[in-house]
């Protein structure tokens, strides 16, 4: 997003290299990428009306909507996300969490971006409201042909919404692949531990799934372990893991996902395995 300067590396958007790009060009490109934040309470300016908030991107990019059209455009956006156009003059505190998240989504859509980064968009919402927002995101994706970068810690929600999944540990990708590969055929021990830790809302599966309870705590990202950063909690770790950082490459024959583990091997952990 360029909100924080990258220290090194390369970010490629729609074929253009972003790191090192000048501010003006960056702003033009950035139009194509918008963000929805986690906290629907902190991410909206409490002193601005809904109309002002959703219309703000038009002030920064006046070329998208001439002044006279803005109100109508904003009201159209409110309708798209399931809010009433009459809410134009209200303030954020007059809305519920789910409605505020809709306001944030309307703002993100204003410039008709190609990509929206969703940073934990439903984790602050009530269970009964999460599905409303997830369904809305899915509908908008179809309607506007959007791509999402969906950042979340709820693995069930991630599975529901994603086509491709990257699993990160201490700031690095441990495994990346399509949704089926990651969820049904994970090869990295961290992916496996993570998936096995997610409880399934079905008491008949109790004790029937692979149970991997990791020991120890998550180390500080500022001072990650040498070699493989997962090795301090990994049950497969050997000397090699401390010595050599495993590259993110294709590891298991017959699968195309990339895995950063010296001892990558498939293990299905989310389905019931009859106890012997």
């Amino acid at each position, binding site marked *: 997003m360029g909100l924080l300067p990258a220290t090194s590396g390369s970010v490629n958007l729609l074929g253009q290299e972003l790191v090192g790009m000048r501010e003006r060009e960056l702003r033009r490109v950035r139009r194509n990428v918008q963000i929805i934040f986690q906290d629907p309470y902190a991410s909206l300016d409490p002193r601005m009306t809904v109309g002002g908030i959703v219309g703000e991107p038009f002030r920064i990019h006046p070329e998208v909507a001439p002044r006279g059209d803005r109100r109508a455009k904003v009201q159209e956006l409110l309708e798209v996300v399931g809010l009433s156009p009459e809410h134009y003059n209200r303030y954020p505190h007059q809305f519920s969490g789910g409605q505020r998240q809709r306001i944030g989504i309307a703002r993100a859509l204003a410039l008709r971006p190609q990509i929206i980064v969703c940073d934990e968009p439903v984790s602050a919402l009530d269970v*009964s409201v999460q599905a409303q927002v*997830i369904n809305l995101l899915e509908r908008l994706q179809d309607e506007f042909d959007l791509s999402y970068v969906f950042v979340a810690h709820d693995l069930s929600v991630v599975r529901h919404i994603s086509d491709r999944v990257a699993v990160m540990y201490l700031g690095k990708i441990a495994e990346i692949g399509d949704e089926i590969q990651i969820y049904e055929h994970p090869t990295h021990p961290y992916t496996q531990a993570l998936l096995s830790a997610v409880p399934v809302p079905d008491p008949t599966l109790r004790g029937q799934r692979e149970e991997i309870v990791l020991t120890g*705590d998550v180390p500080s990202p500022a001072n990650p372990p040498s070699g493989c950063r997962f090795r301090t909690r990994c049950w497969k770790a050997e000397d090699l893991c401390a010595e050599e950082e495993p590259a993110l490459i294709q590891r298991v024959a017959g699968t195309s996902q990339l895995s950063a583990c010296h001892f990558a091997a498939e293990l299905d952990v989310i389905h019931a395995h009859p106890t012997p």
Partner: protein
Amino acid sequence: MSTVDEAKHGDDTVAFGSRRQRSRTEASQSDDLGFDASAPLLVVEDLRVEFHTREGVAHAVNGASFTVGHGETLGILGESGSGKSVTAQAVMGILDSPPAKVGGGKVLLRGVDLLALPEESRRLVRSNRVAMVFQDALSALNPVFTVGYQLGELFRIHRGVTRQEAKTEAVSMLDLVGIPGAAQRVSDYPHQFSGGMRQRVMIAMALALDPDVLIADEPTTALDVTVQAQIMKLLADVQAERNMGMILITHDMGVVADVADKICVMYAGRIVERADVHSVYGNPAHPYTKALLESIPRIDHKGQQLASIEGLPPNLTKLPEGCSFHPRCRFRRDRCTTDDPPLYDIGGSRQSACHYYEEVLAT
């Protein structure tokens, strides 16, 4: 593979040998309250808690009833604001009053109504018999004392042990909850522990005086999913080991499915469904429970579009007429907008607060 097991096997005798020694004074004082060993462990009857706010009276808990037996885990499920924490605080006797006010009901521990006890006796019960684990360990621990001191004080005050004995007890408690290097860590301050370890410290504090009932209010919500699994396993192990009654409060349908024996589903201050865990998940009897189950994505299959519950939970000071859930309910009929459904007994030790539970069960 788990630290929990290692800790247990390492120091079994210390941890479990000493915990039974109640100081004579406190044990007899709390026994003087008239506890009846043959009465059920915990029975909550028609509990009511209100908040008097500027907008009016909010019925945060509106007639909640449930029981918890030895070795049993009751899950209380419900979304934000449904009254889970207020219920727990009322049972513990730690409500902030004012603004909260217990409007009625009973909390019977072994036959003794805790709500009728004077504060002095409640304090005794709180430390010895009913303990609680909170979501936010940092705010529950005192930042200026070492965890060893805080744990040790429990034993010194309530069990009358010496400073040296208190320290030994503190170390064995930390060991019991799976904190590596307990003998050293006992001298650390709360902020020197990671989130998961701090949660373990709080569990150690709650378990120190060997309570009969442990209430865990969202004990893992703030934690990484792998650490959450560790803590849930710790709680389940200790509960089974000590044959405690446990109340687990959460909004996570997965966590409850994994550990609870029976479940209360709360909506807008009411218990709307009460049943054993298999019935609730296998064939829910209340439209709200049913809708919740259909609205969450599952990890073990990709699934289709989620069935969402339209609308929002109601404002507690302005509950809808009739059934509180009616504005969001897809089973609603005219009657629902005027008649408030009681918690119907629907057979098989199950209850549902829906006029049309038969229809819900059948679809």
